[in-house]
């Protein structure tokens, strides 16, 4: 059973989608929201597997709402025709449905979702998530928006978090967009077995380290898969060595 929330400012649009979803018995609509703030509230309290998200909404757009979530559930965007919003999709091939929604396209989108879900099960991650909800798992995804471009990024693909004032710059692939989260807040939520606080400004993904070299004052210099060189402070070096020797 997939637990889903519909977020759309138009009552009729929500009704129409609910009606279409009656054909899919394994989708259960557990809540509806009429704007982004309501949406965030319901996502936080109900922790759905999937959201159907309208992009143009009063107050905040669907994209803005996603960037505020610590971790994004699976998302199927719904939109009436809109050039600006569709540009984001062209770049990143996120899944979206245009309104009025074609039942066959809806079936395809849900089908794709099932495939991903079963892949996740194979790696045996769902149980762990259930164990500790507040901790982010490396298979969780975050939604990142940088100007007109946006991405869903798996935490496992992020090699580095860098503190930039109140923001954190995240490094994945060849991109390094900013997210509005402090490094300290992130550190609390990240799995410390994978994400290591190397110094005041950096958190590195231990699985994406290329080289480790000794450095001044008994510190270490880590070279990441993307070529970034990160210094490990002396105090953290002790901790790092302890973890690695395990």
């Amino acid at each position, binding site marked *: 059973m997939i637990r889903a929330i519909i977020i759309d400012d*138009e*009552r*009729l*649009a929500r*009704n*129409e989608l609910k*009606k279409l979803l009656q054909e899919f018995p394994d989708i259960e609509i557990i809540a509806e929201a009429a*704007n982004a*703030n309501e949406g965030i509230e319901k996502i936080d309290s109900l922790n759905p597997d999937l959201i159907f998200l309208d992009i*143009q909404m*009063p*107050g905040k757009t669907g994209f803005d709402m996603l960037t505020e979530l610590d971790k994004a559930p699976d998302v199927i965007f719904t939109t*009436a*025709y*809109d050039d600006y919003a569709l540009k984001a999709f062209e770049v990143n091939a996120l899944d979206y449905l*245009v*309104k*009025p*929604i074609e039942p066959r396209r809806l079936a395809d989108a849900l089908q794709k979702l099932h495939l991903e879900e079963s892949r996740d099960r194979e790696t045996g991650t769902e149980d762990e998530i259930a164990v500790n909800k507040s901790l982010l798992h490396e298979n969780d995804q975050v939604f990142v928006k940088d100007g007109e471009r946006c991405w869903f990024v798996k935490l496992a693909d992020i090699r580095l978090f860098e503190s930039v004032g109140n923001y954190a710059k995240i490094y994945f692939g060849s991109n390094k967009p900013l997210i509005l989260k402090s490094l300290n807040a992130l550190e609390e939520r990240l799995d410390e077995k994978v994400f290591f606080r190397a110094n005041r400004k950096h958190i590195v993904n231990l699985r994406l380290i290329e080289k480790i070299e000794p450095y001044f004052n008994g510190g270490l210099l880590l070279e990441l898969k993307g070529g970034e060189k990160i210094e490990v402070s002396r105090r953290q070096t002790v901790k790092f060595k302890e973890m690695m020797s395990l």
Partner: protein
Amino acid sequence: MQKTSTYYWWLQIGGWGMLALIMILINVLFGQRVDQQFLISLSLKVLVGIFTTHLFRIYIHRAGWLQLPVEKVWPRIALGILIVCLLDTIIRISFMNWLDPANSNKKLEFSTRFLLATVENGLYIIPWTLIYYFFHYIEKSRKQQLDTLKLEALVKELELKTIKSHINPHFIFNALNSIRALIDENPLRARTAITELSNILRSSMQTEKQETVFFEKELNIVKDYLALEHIRFEDRLNVQYDIAENTLTQMVPPMMLQTLVENAIKHGISKQVRGGTVTIISRMKDRYHQLVIRNTGRLSKTGNEDGFGLISTRNRLYLLFGEQANFHIREINENMVEAELHIPLA
């Protein structure tokens, strides 16, 4: 090109013919003999003149001298004139010698004759070239003027076409989506909604053909439009009309009020979580028809989002009414935007 060519031959033959007549006339007036030798020499002058200048013209065309800027043309022309004069002389002297070898050699040295003939040729060829260029120069500038006018007309027409009425596709698809949901929930309302939508689509297609329409017609479209948006926004959209009866027969540009109301929804109501009110006022004021559209919301600070709608409204008014029409948009308080149109009375 055919026409220019005919002109050319008329001028060419007419010009040289005129020259021949004048020379005969001068000879007669000054009591000189118009004998066979004079006539032969004159015909030769005219025929060779036509021949060489025609060659010159062909060359000018081939080399594209007519397209060159003036400062580049002068040296070429000067050289061209010299060569044409020399050519003319050579041909003429050869002919004269061939026709009448005995007579011509008697009077003058060859070099003197050559020089005199060349200078004489200059007297015809230089004016010929000047006339030729002058004619082309006038022709060219007239054509340029004509092209500019044509282009201006085309631009104006295109502008009006593209500016007129873009029904927002976003609106159409949202409306269709609402109607689909209504089919089960309220079939009667769904039926009227389809009528409303087709009215809007029809009128947006017809605007291509008309410059102005009765305000009443435009207002009906806006009413249909707002009725459809009301289905979508439900109690988040509140509409108020304040329409003076005597404005209904005024002429307005089609889809202009519609575009402004659409902006009021898109940038005003749809951005408010709790929705808001759209007010439409139409009344006579002094010498113009005043249209006011108020909506809950703020003017976007960046200003380029709705730029196209506003700029195109302004441009359309200017193209149709010149300085007499007027349009502006402003915030009247911290949560209300007002757009105002002044259209001159017909």
